[in-house]
């Protein structure tokens, strides 16, 4: 016999959860007491509920297992919304448990009452309001099933306080399966469609594989790599898909889209066949005017979500299904196919791509004297960590530089908020990653703007003794905003600078019990980075003063085709 609170924690344990991120409050006190009374499910106390969701999210992205969050009602619940929305946009499996006022006070504007089901509705995959304690095991089972299957996403469980009352106990049994008759995500692709796609793919003259976050989240990276290498075709990844194909391999043409490489975007634009897999033709890829998007391409689109197919760009061959079984079947059919790839055409295609590559769109022009370019910091980071770190990021120029210059060879190493673009994501996400992999190198590439959105998590890092390395590309500005203002608003920097009011990040880090290092000169960049990463047992805040005038290039020209880009402040295609 268990109380509702005990049942909840027990059910989490039975579901395989050993770590949750949360913040207590009145409506969840029974649950916190249940946590106190056991030792199977660990709890990490964050300093803001938004950080709990990002930490759980980072944990989920790095491990593939669902992240779990516990927050109180009212402000605790609403604080979690940004993190839930972030996870929703990037299809991250997450279960968020929110306290609610007691059943008899729901609807009475009780203290700390918020309609969490209503507030979260547009940004969750599904949600449950627990009506009675006996329902807890099945609700938990169903919530995890929904969060982790099909196109993953966040699920909210809202629990009225009296449901977790320690004074009332019930028999407990954790269900084997979640019975949801109205929910049946696809388990494999349509063989006929796959056959059709393989045929087109093998007859292509100028093919490209465009893969996205779905391949990372669907654990399809290895199969994708095998398929691409079997075919010998070029591969581009979206911002969310980095690591799904090894970035240092010669078939990789870089990230595509708004800040994609010249060769990736040119190849897309010129392609005759595009295999889009686990990608959703987001406007940051297609550059908003879809009528100009890849005019000659036959589009083969694999996605687990039927609604993602032909949403913006019409697919000629849609395939709905999880990436792994679809890729397996594709590989089988490619191996069995009698079609000979036109090697001559492919060689000509590669020649063209290599010509675009020669443009070297990510070449870094060093600044004068000791001024550090932000790109050089990422290059140094890559070198110092041997390209083998988990990199979390915030949102802005630093994020794009990290994506462009840290060459991810493995999936789940690049952890960023792609869909929602949530500043403040990086540090709490790093908390989740470091807790999942205590011995791994975890670096958070951030900007002085973003880091201040969840800076309080330095305290969590201290409490949990997390040796995260924060790499702050300090350009003394909301750099990405400033770049747009430079390019589209005549250089009028409306509310995007604050150089006179920045904190001393080194002192700040130290006051939270960490190590702070400031890097101001190019000549000491690598050496000091090495020094920072040599500190294995402490968080190091590396505050790097970078060129405040740098822009991210290439940059897509608004409303243009994929081939239309600015390549520097003075050049365009």
């Amino acid at each position, binding site marked *: 016999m268990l109380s509702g609170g005990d049942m909840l924690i027990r059910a989490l344990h039975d579901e395989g959860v050993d770590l949750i991120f949360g913040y207590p409050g009145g409506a969840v006190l029974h649950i916190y007491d249940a946590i106190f009374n056991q030792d199977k499910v660990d709890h990490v106390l964050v300093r803001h509920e938004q950080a709990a969701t990002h930490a759980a999210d980072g944990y989920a992205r790095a491990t593939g297992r669902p992240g779990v969050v516990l927050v109180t009602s009212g402000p605790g619940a609403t604080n979690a919304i940004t993190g839930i929305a972030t996870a929703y946009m990037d299809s991250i499996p997450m279960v968020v448990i929110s306290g609610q006022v007691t059943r008899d006070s729901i609807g009475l504007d009780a203290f700390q009452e918020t309609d969490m089901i209503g507030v979260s*509705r*547009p940004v969750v*995959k599904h949600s449950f*309001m627990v009506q009675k304690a006996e329902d807890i095991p099945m609700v938990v089972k169903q919530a995890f099933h929904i969060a982790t299957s099909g196109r993953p996403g966040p699920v909210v469980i809202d629990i009225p306080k009296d449901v977790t009352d320690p004074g009332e106990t019930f028999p407990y049994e954790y269900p084997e399966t979640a019975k949801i008759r109205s929910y049946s995500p696809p388990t494999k692709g349509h063989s006929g469609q796959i056959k059709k796609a393989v045929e087109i793919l093998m007859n292509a003259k100028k093919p490209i594989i465009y893969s996205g976050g779905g391949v990372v989240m669907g654990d399809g990276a290895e199969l994708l790599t095998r398929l691409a290498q079997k075919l010998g075709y070029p591969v581009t990844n979206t911002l969310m898909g980095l690591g799904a194909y090894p970035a240092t391999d010669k078939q990789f043409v870089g990230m595509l889209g708004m800040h994609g490489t010249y060769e990736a975007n040119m190849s897309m634009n010129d392609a005759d066949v595009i295999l889009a897999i686990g990608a959703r033709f987001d406007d940051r890829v297609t550059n908003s005017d879809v009528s100009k998007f890849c005019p000659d391409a036959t589009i083969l689109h694999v996605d687990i*979500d039927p609604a993602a197919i*032909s949403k913006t760009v019409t697919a000629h061959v849609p395939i709905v299904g999880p990436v792994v079984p679809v890729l397996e079947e594709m590989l089988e059919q490619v191996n069995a196919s009698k079609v000979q790839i036109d090697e001559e055409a492919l060689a000509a295609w590669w020649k063209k791509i290599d010509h675009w590559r020669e443009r070297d769109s990510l070449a870094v022009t060093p600044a004068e004297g000791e001024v550090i370019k932000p790109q050089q910091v990422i290059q140094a980071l890559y070198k110092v960590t041997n390209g083998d770190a988990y990199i979390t990021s915030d949102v802005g120029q630093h994020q794009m530089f990290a994506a462009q210059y840290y060459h991810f060879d493995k999936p789940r190493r690049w952890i960023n908020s792609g869909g929602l673009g949530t500043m403040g994501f990086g540090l709490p996400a790093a908390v989740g990653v470091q807790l999942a992999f205590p011995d791994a190198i975890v670096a958070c590439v951030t900007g002085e703007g973003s880091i201040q959105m969840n800076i309080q998590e330095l305290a969590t890092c201290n409490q949990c003794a997390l040796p995260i390395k924060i790499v702050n590309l300090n350009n003394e500005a909301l750099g990405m905003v400033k770049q747009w203002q430079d390019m589209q608003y005549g250089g009028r920097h409306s509310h995007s600078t604050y150089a006179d009011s920045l904190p001393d990040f080194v002192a700040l880090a130290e006051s939270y019990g960490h190590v702070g290092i400031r890097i101001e000169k190019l000549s000491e960049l690598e050496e000091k980075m090495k020094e920072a990463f040599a500190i294995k047992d402490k968080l190091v805040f590396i505050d790097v003063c970078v060129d405040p005038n740098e822009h991210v290039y290439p940059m897509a020209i608004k409303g243009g085709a994929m081939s239309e880009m600015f390549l520097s402040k003075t050049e365009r295609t």
Partner: protein
Amino acid sequence: MRRIVSILLENQPGALSRVVGLFSQRNYNINSLTVAPTDDPTLSRLTITTIGDDRKIEQIIKHLNKIVDVAKLVDLTEGSHIERELLLIKVKATGAQRAEVKRVADIFRGDVVDVTPTMYTIQLTGTSEKLDGFIQALDGTTILEVARSGASGVARGEKILSL
């Protein structure tokens, strides 16, 4: 193009708001919406009429299908179907108009279900188009109140929407 989508929805708290929320969230139109339990008390039947081109309708249907509480759905307008809506309308009926209103109601096979010395309450069922036609035919009279149920429908023949 006008479409009629019929949905079997889990009879769960909040399920309806997920469906309605989807329409506002994704900027889709709802022209009418009816909902009531079915013979199976765990399922509600919802009928939504909406307007959009094929691409939009395809998206609406895909997104509706993604809602966990949506058990099954069908676009009735894809095949031949039967559609009915109920109209209750109060019209001013005095003097010579009394007979005229009654005559129009008879033509449309409407029933006068309530009377006062100055008005009629008329009940009419049919397709939404027929109801529109009736209201238009009453153009010359004073319409006091209109209550329409929104369309409900089923496919013709042996096609059945059930679990």
